[in-house]
């Protein structure tokens, strides 16, 4: 291997080539994403079980949600994934500033998503649509309703935490990209940050129909 200055700066001592190192980083990220999927799988499985046990209650509670907010949030997240993908494209042609701008735009869209989530949550709090023993709502108050709200807050809450983590990652990586930390040859952190954001997006693609539509 003939090292050039662009690659040697990022090559860790225990790897023989940058190519292998980046392959390792990608593989590690995909495995990590698999663990994230399994984390949510538990909640989805719980949702499936209780939906089966309390079908009508879950359907009624689900219909009481503002579908348009869920839809807008879906569009917002899909758009943010698009801007992240464009940001990755910018760095692969060596444009770190372009990456920064597009990643910051994605973070902005993340804030829009969280804003809508805040509107929804405050509505639920006022209406007493809360989990377990905190449930005080009088409409759609079947025996399964407190469980629906428990799962609703667990699933969307955990997803929200992931959105915040993803935004932080995008902000940091975007900022570093703007300062020229990555190049056309070396930009694996940009790729990994993008992968994480796409996963957060993808999980929402499952959450939206599960909670709002069916």
């Amino acid at each position: 291997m003939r090292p050039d200055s662009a690659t040697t700066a990022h090559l860790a001592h225990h790897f023989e080539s940058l190519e292998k190192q980046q392959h390792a980083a990608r593989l590690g990220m995909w495995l990590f994403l698999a663990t994230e999927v399994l984390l949510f799988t538990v909640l989805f499985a719980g949702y499936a079980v209780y939906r089966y046990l309390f079908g009508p209650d879950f359907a009624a509670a689900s219909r009481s949600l503002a579908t348009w907010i869920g839809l807008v949030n879906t569009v917002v997240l899909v758009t943010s994934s698009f801007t992240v993908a464009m940001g990755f494209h910018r760095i692969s042609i060596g444009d770190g500033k372009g990456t920064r701008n597009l990643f910051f735009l994605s973070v902005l869209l993340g804030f829009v998503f969280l804003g809508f989530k805040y509107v929804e949550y405050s509505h639920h709090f006022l209406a007493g649509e809360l989990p377990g023993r905190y449930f005080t709502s009088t409409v759609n108050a079947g025996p399964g309703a407190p469980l629906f709200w428990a799962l609703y807050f667990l699933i969307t809450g955990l997803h929200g935490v992931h959105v915040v983590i993803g935004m932080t990652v995008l902000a940091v990586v975007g900022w570093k990209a703007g300062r020229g930390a990555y190049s056309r040859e070396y930009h694996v952190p940009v790729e990994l940050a993008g992968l994480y954001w796409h996963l957060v997006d993808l999980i929402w693609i499952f959450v939206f129909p599960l909670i709002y539509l069916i």
Partner: protein
Amino acid sequence: MNPSPASEAGYATRNYLNLPATGLRSWLRTLDHKRIGVMFLVAVSVAFALGGFFALLIRLELLTPGPTVMDAMTYNRVFTLHGVIMIFLFMIPAIPSGFGNFLLPIMLGAKDVAFPRLNLLSFYIYLAGAAVAIWGMIHGGADTGWTFYTPYSTTTTTRVVPVLLGAFIIGFSSILTGLNFIVTTHTMRAPGMGWGRIPLFVWGIYATSIIQVLATPVLGMALLLVAVENAFGWGIFDPARGGDPVLFQHFFWFYSHPAVYIMILPAMAVISEVVCAFARKNIFGYKAIAYSSLGIAFVGFFTWGHHLFTSGQSTLTGGIFGVLTMFVGVFTAIKVFNWTATLYRGSISFKTPFAYFVGFLFFLVFGGMTGVALATLSLDVHWHDTYFVVAHFHFIMVGATVMGFLAALHYWWPKITGRMYHEGWGLVGSVLVVLGFNFTFIPQFLLGNEGMPRRYFSYPERYWALNVASTAGASVLAFGLVLVLVVILVSLRWGRAAGPNPWGSAGFEWNTPSPPPPENYHETPVFTRGPHEYHHEEPGGSPPAGPEPKA
């Protein structure tokens, strides 16, 4: 650590123990997989001693039918502590994070694991989780048993949440280590190290890592749900609010049954190495052992229902889970037959690690066969939650896994420390451990068969004699383990230098000096043969030359 003269023959002075520095700071901030492995080994050994101490308290309490040394509530806390410490703090990380960390990169010819920083982080996450769990145990202590079954765990007044969070945090350590090993095995192999040349230890650790990565998040989430339920009453597992407590059992065992294979597969991996080294013979069926590890890892994900035979699941479901469980027996038998076939016409050298192999084989077969019996639905209804189950899983968890751990400790001790322990005392220790173990747990099979339930504080007088026998056996076992500890600690100071390959083993890790240098090999090795190939399969045959340095 090593006061002997630096010039002693056979002791590599340029090694990972004294480079880059010997101070505590350099250890706590190290990224060297060997040092992290050693730190894990020290930590899990402390946990093992602590868990063993609680085991002795349990046996002491059960020495007489009524109250002996503690009240019922203390007893409940003690057996919970014993289970939580042994499973989450000792057995799950013991072989993968300890020996796996030390050996896996060396065996693959790599300089380190793929993500050294993540590796160190894994160690600190383990310590943090252990601290949280132990803090909870001291301040209140959970009394639910290590299984945290709902609805009891969500209503108990003992401090169960910190213990749950501790186990949850340790789970991340397990995930990170598994992830690291999978990536390392895929990307860090030295030239010539094809998939067909990977040592069987690495295959076992690789299969373990897959389970760690895929199953642990499920446990994490399930424990978190119990904590939420216990602290806030969200109703997920609370029947009064429509929740289903049995759902927790499904979530819990979806992880915790595969976790049994997280504990036993690494021990099997150790044994595959030990049996070749001390029979001085290539493994009988390399592919059979490698693939059966993956087979166990795979089928282990579809057996969790055998813990729910009496939890109201349908007879058909129970039967299906029973049959799926028996597949584990098939894969395990494949391994057992391959190990014993390796012995055939080998040149056996009956050293301490081999003694543990013999113990391991007996315990695994005995524990495995009682496992198949327990997987039989009609029999399990009789044995469910009795001491028969306790004896069965201790045969696998203590019998097989701890024998594997001790075999690994003795086999690789010269590599890790550069020193030989006293062979005669090592053998005495192994005999005490194996005999003590038998005396402890064979009576428990009989007790369970007669109907003594597990986790009870007292028992009728007709169970007295066998309980005394079990407690007596436990004291022999404890004495044997203390002796083992003394023997290996003594060797640190007074043991003779081991040299690179004291066993004449063909394993790749023996081609580096003992203790290995920080970069493992002075030059990147090139592998030209399989990991267990002995040229001369006759008495005293020598292993072939190791990986040749690159020209």
